[in-house]
């Protein structure tokens, strides 16, 4: 069990709900992954369209983490957060402020300002940020307890682009809950960040676009568990040269070379 935003969870995987082949595919992926938290968004829709997606999620009994995806300004993000709270009855918000159209890199200035407003208003803010240490420190100073640094741009599946900076972030912010969000493409990427001591992984596209999304969801769940166990167990230090694992004393046919 681990604590996140005042609640206890078993799974350290947060799963996105977008881009699946069908609602049934999404349902199976969530169930098989064991994810207890899923991300959702708010969009314009006509009244007559109904909302089967909403009914499906409520049946699964998962915790919602609404996002402010695609918001371009502080006001848009803050209003979307308020609307999410009104609809999903939660003070959790995955705060996203787009700063660059090509990489969808978050705008750290808008992010900080929106976080400040929302924290003062009682939200538990999960800011989607970069690996930048100082931005992370400023977000914590505004009252964030959780950060969601990217591994790589959203939907790119590259894995960690800047592992050294993420390593520094983890080392310098030991008190923060750090959840890697975006850019994870393979279970090995997820295992790698968990081995480094990150507290959880949020992903969507790598599962949704797999040939077999439910199976990939389970693969990620296992990788995240393995990575976390390895971190808790403590990885061995790396060395530049070989060190025999089988003891040398008693090696068969061993002879000490005679000195000339």
């Amino acid at each position, binding site marked *: 069990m681990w604590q996140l935003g005042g609640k206890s969870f078993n799974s350290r995987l947060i799963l*996105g*709900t*977008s*881009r*699946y082949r069908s609602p049934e595919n*999404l349902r199976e992926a969530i169930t098989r992954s064991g994810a207890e938290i899923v*991300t*959702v*968004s*708010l*969009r*314009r*829709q006509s*009244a*007559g*369209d109904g*909302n089967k*997606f*909403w009914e499906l*999620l409520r049946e699964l009994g998962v915790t919602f983490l*609404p*996002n402010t*995806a695609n918001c371009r300004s502080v*006001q*848009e993000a803050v*209003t*979307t957060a*308020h*609307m*999410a709270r*009104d*609809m*999903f009855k939660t003070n959790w918000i995955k705060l996203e402020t787009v700063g660059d159209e090509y990489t969808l890199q978050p705008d750290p200035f808008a992010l900080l300002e929106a976080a400040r407003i929302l924290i003062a208003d009682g939200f538990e803010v999960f800011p989607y940020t970069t690996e930048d240490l100082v931005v992370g420190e400023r977000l914590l100073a505004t009252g964030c307890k959780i950060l969601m640094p990217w591994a790589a741009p*959203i*939907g790119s599946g590259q894995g960690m682009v800047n592992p050294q900076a993420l390593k520094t972030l983890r080392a310098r912010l030991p008190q923060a809950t750090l959840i890697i969000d975006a850019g994870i493409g393979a279970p090995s990427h997820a295992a790698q960040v968990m081995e480094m001591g990150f507290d959880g992984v949020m992903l*969507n*596209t790598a599962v949704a676009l797999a040939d077999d999304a439910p199976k990939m969801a389970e693969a990620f769940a296992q990788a995240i568990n393995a990575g976390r166990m390895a971190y808790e167990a403590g990885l061995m230090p790396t060395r530049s040269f070989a060190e025999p694992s089988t003891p040398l004393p008693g090696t068969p046919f061993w002879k000490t070379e005679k000195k000339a």
Partner: protein
Amino acid sequence: MKIIINGEEKDIHATTIAEVIKALEYEGDYFAVAKNLVCVPRAKYAETLVAAQDEIEILMPMQGG
């Protein structure tokens, strides 16, 4: 009265958010409303007045990452 609903101008006979919601036939609890980029909590639909050219945003839960 002409008001902007989700970016489109519509002619709606309504004086409050509650009446706009009813006129557009939104039902249940799975939507949220903002007026001129400020959230209107559900409890305040009946008392929040709308005027011509107000921009009303009505959002519903959707898939997201």
